[in-house]
């Protein structure tokens, strides 16, 4: 066996690290001594998400290197040491610290540096670049004494940097030399819309501005002067005017570089010296620098492929066809909260190309598609304000999928009740690249799902790396996953869990039609096994919304999730929060005082919730009955904040106080909240009533919302949507209160009977065949003839309501469980609190360690 050869990777950024990972996974490390120089004091980190550093991410969070990666794989890494010269004659790399390491091959992954235009005063104190964690730390430190910040450069990185300055609380300006923002990716109209969206966020944008001088006073930046004679006062300046390849080591060792910089490479990522490769932003391929991470990763994989094979064969000429042939510069970003995407060639040069443009300056949405002459293929496009179609459009383009007859539909939001125009993932070839950050194809994803029996999207991401870069392809990965599951015969199964071979809807029907009153009876007749944390709470909810027994009845108690079991919300340290009902958000001064007293006496942390109520946090299990007793005595009752139940009905003050209110929204909100209090449903429910169309109660973002009109009430349903927000849809207009209540009764029971477990109303409506039109037929026109029955069920539930807290504390057997230890009166000794902003919160692990509490 011949001795291992030395392979030196110069640069430990994202691309250099990706190369090492690929070498390790290809087993090539057996044939090579892998050595890498890392100039920065920290190993490779995620530069793409660098701005996350300002929203709380730590250097550790951003690290790309798994702990022990270098040690376990035998990679020699020199951290904080920069490779400074390559002696090609004797094949030795020397470093700033004086190391001299012989090499057989080198991979240059030196990346790029931020370009700082030669402006007078550019080196003044208070000027920064935006590239490394050190840069960010310096900015953070300096910004503490600043009010205003300017970013020079309105490209991708500049806007990202503006976001960072905004996050630091600075009045932020962006200065761009070109006539629009993101001049490389976006056209004039798109740039204008992007600008107005960004200005709405409080960032001032100055385009067509050429900076001539940076003025300092007392050694610190104070203002900038522009060529047009104007000036701008600022406390700090960040340059983000583009990048330049770091090619100095190549240059000084006689390797060919481009006229305007960049290490020239061929299709194999080889430089003019065949033993030296270059990848990433330092490399110049066909006179082009690729300033995105995805092309850098592609180069890394080409180089790794060639070098690992070269080692195997112990020869230099690779027997492979792995080549770099350029890369797609498509990109999708969320800049300052605004979606921006650009793909393919959005600036067609040939006169044959056709364009479809949707420009909605009112909502700040701009979408442009560039098509070939006969309109059958996508060549490129731009999306500003709403980039949800990016994944689909990119696939159409990359895979040259023929467009549907009305390609404009691809740019439009789905019509009401209709499906999103698009394509099935089935139409994609296996070779379709799904994740461009990590170069994962559809075929690889499907293979991983099949071969490794993956059963959730998280494992797909873990196994294939797809979706772990920018995350833009996750919806597509999810679609592929679902399609594969369906093919494997999984998706058709809607069984609740392994204990019941029925869907929730089917079980609900069985419970009602066979008058089943307990879980035991249901599992005996229609299921198997002993149940689990999925079926037990689900069945409990169905029983509650059908028969409405107290949920802590002996036969139901073991079914309850901990929140329902203790009638409070479990928090991360195992204590609970207590939320009494405050119907419509209206509360008397006396009751407010009681809440304060209870919180003070039991040492609880108080917070106004998002739903106009007051949350009392940090109650130990043993304190709960005592807290409830005090609250009940003061006239409060359970707010059901713990259950999958009706939570809150928010309201504005309406005509009682407001000069615009046209109806009494507070009275109606209280009435609605009291009518449906405690109602168990597949998912928690929220509602709101607004007294006029100004919509101060935000009723259109609720599961059901009511807005006053001059003539009565408008009823909206199925809003919210959770992490994918969705507006409620108008169900009925100008109806009187009796009709309103009737429709809500019907709507809620219909939802409860037919929705899936933990399915929100928004998702339920999205899946409902026929959509809102069908729902209107059922609820308003009684097309199924079940309305009387739906109303009857609601009437029963309303009439059998009881305050679960009150019933519980009145029953000594039920109270017995509220002890932390069954054999001791001691409270849980593991609970540790620390003070913050005048209250206490759970200690974190670090603080617990300091306090000497361990497991």
């Amino acid at each position, binding site marked *: 066996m011949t001795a291992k050869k030395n392979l030196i990777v110069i640069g430990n950024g994202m691309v250099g690290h990706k190369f090492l990972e690929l070498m390790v996974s290809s087993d090539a490390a057996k044939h090579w001594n892998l050595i890498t120089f890392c100039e920065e004091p920290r190993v490779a980190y995620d530069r793409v998400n660098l701005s996350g550093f300002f929203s709380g991410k730590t250097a550790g969070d951003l690290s790309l290197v798994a702990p022990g990666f270098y040690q376990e794989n035998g990679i020699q890494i020199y951290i904080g040491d920069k490779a400074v010269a390559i002696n090609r004659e004797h094949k030795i790399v020397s470093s700033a610290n004086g190391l001299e390491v012989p090499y057989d091959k080198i991979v240059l992954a030196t990346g790029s540096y931020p370009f700082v235009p030669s402006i007078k005063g550019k080196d003044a104190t208070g000027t920064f670049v935006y590239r490394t964690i050190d840069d960010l730390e310096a900015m953070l430190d300096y910004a503490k004494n600043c009010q205003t910040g300017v970013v020079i450069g309105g490209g991708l990185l500049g806007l990202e940097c503006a976001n960072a300055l905004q996050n630091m609380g600075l009045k932020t300006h962006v200065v761009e030399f070109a006539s629009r923002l993101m001049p490389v990716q976006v056209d004039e109209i798109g740039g204008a819309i992007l600008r107005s969206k960004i200005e709405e966020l409080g960032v001032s944008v100055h385009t067509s501005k050429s900076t001539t001088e940076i003025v300092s006073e007392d050694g610190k930046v104070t203002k900038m002067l522009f060529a047009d004679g104007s000036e701008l006062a600022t406390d700090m300046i960040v340059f983000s005017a583009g990048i330049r390849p770091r090619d100095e080591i190549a240059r000084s060792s006689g390797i060919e570089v481009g006229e305007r910089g960049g290490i020239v490479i061929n299709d194999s990522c080889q430089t003019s010296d065949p033993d030296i490769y270059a990848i990433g932003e330092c490399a110049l391929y066909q006179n082009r620098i690729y300033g995105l991470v995805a092309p850098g990763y592609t180069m890394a994989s080409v180089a790794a492929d060639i070098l690992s094979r070269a080692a195997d064969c112990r020869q230099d000429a690779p027997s492979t066809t792995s080549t770099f042939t350029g890369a797609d510069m498509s990109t999708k970003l969320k800049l300052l909260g605004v979606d921006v995407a650009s793909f393919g060639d959005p600036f067609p040069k040939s006169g044959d190309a056709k364009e479809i443009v949707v420009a909605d300056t009112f909502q700040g949405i701009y979408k442009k598609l560039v098509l070939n002459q006969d309109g059958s293929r996508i060549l490129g496009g731009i999306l500003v304000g709403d980039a949800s179609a990016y994944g689909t459009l990119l696939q159409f383009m990359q895979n040259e999928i023929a467009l549907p007859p009305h390609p404009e539909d691809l740019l439009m939001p789905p019509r009401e009740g209709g499906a999103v125009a698009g394509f099935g993932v089935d139409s994609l070839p296996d070779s379709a690249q799904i994740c461009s950050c990590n170069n994962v194809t559809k075929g690889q994803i499907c293979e991983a799902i099949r071969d490794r029996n993956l059963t959730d999207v998280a494992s797909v991401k873990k196994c294939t790396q797809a979706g772990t870069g920018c995350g833009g392809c996750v919806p597509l990965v999810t679609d592929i996953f679902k399609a594969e599951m369906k093919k494997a015969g999984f998706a058709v199964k809607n069984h609740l869990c392994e204990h019941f071979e029925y869907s929730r809807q089917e079980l609900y029907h069985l419970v009602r039609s066979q008058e089943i009153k307990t879980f035991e009876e249901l599992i005996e007749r229609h299921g198997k096994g*002993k149940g689990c944390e999925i079926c037990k709470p689900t069945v409990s909810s169905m029983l509650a919304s059908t028969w409405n027994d107290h949920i802590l009845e002996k036969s139901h108690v073991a079914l309850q*999730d*901990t929140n329902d079991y203790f009638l409070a919300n479990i928090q991360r340290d195992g204590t609970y929060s207590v939320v009494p009902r405050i119907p419509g958000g209206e509360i008397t001064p006396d009751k407010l005082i009681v809440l304060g007293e209870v919180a003070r006496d039991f040492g609880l942390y108080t917070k106004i919730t998002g739903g106009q109520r007051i949350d009392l946090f940090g109650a130990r299990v043993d304190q709960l009955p005592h807290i409830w007793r005090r609250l009940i005595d003061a006239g409060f009752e359970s707010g059901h904040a713990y259950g999958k139940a009706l939570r809150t009905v928010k309201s504005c003050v309406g005509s009682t106080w407001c000069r615009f209110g046209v109806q009494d929204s507070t009275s109606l909100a209280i009435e609605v909240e009291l009518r449906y209090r405690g109602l168990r449903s597949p998912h928690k429910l929220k509602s709101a009533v607004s007294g006029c169309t100004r919509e101060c109660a935000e009723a259109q973002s609720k599961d059901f919302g009511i807005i006053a009109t001059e003539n009565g009430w408008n009823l909206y349903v199925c809003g919210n949507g959770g992490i994918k927000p969705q507006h409620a849809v108008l169900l009925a207009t100008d109806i009187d209160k009796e009709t309103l209540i009737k429709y809500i009764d019907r709507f809620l029971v219909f939802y409860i009977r037919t929705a899936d477990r933990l399915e929100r109303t928004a998702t339920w409506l999205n899946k409902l065949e026929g959509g809102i039109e069908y729902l209107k037929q059922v609820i308003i026109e009684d097309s199924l003839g079940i309305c009387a029955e739906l109303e009857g069920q609601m009437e029963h539930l309303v009439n059998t309501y009881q305050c679960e807290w009150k019933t519980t504390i009145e029953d000594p057997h039920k109270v017995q469980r509220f002890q932390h230890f069954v054999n001791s009166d001691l409270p849980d000794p593991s609970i540790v609190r620390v003070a913050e902003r005048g209250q206490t919160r759970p200690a974190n692990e670090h603080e617990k360690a300091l306090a000497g509490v361990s497991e």
Partner: protein
Amino acid sequence: MVQSLSVSDTVTTWVDVCSLHAIAPYTGVCALVKGEQVAIFRVGNGQEVYALSNYDPFSKAFVLSRGIVGDRNGTLKVASPIYKQNFSLTTGQCLDDETVKIPTFAVRVVADRVQVAVS
């Protein structure tokens, strides 16, 4: 469940914890046994009981006794009330992460009293 006698039983002390009726069928309670938090679960209406550590290694809170008891493919288990990881009642093995296992305790019912073994 009554533990069969074994050699080590000669040095085992059984600590009386509570009445069997203090544990509702298919629920758990937490007992303080020699300074340790022990979660005791009752499966069914009879005398079938199991004991695990009450400490949930995922949430780092002492809460397992408050989880929902059930089975997965016949393996008796409890689901943590915080992030829902499942643990075998018989072995303490986490069923969702093979690298995690929590301590178990011998437990028995004698004359309607629940007892936990300490060594």
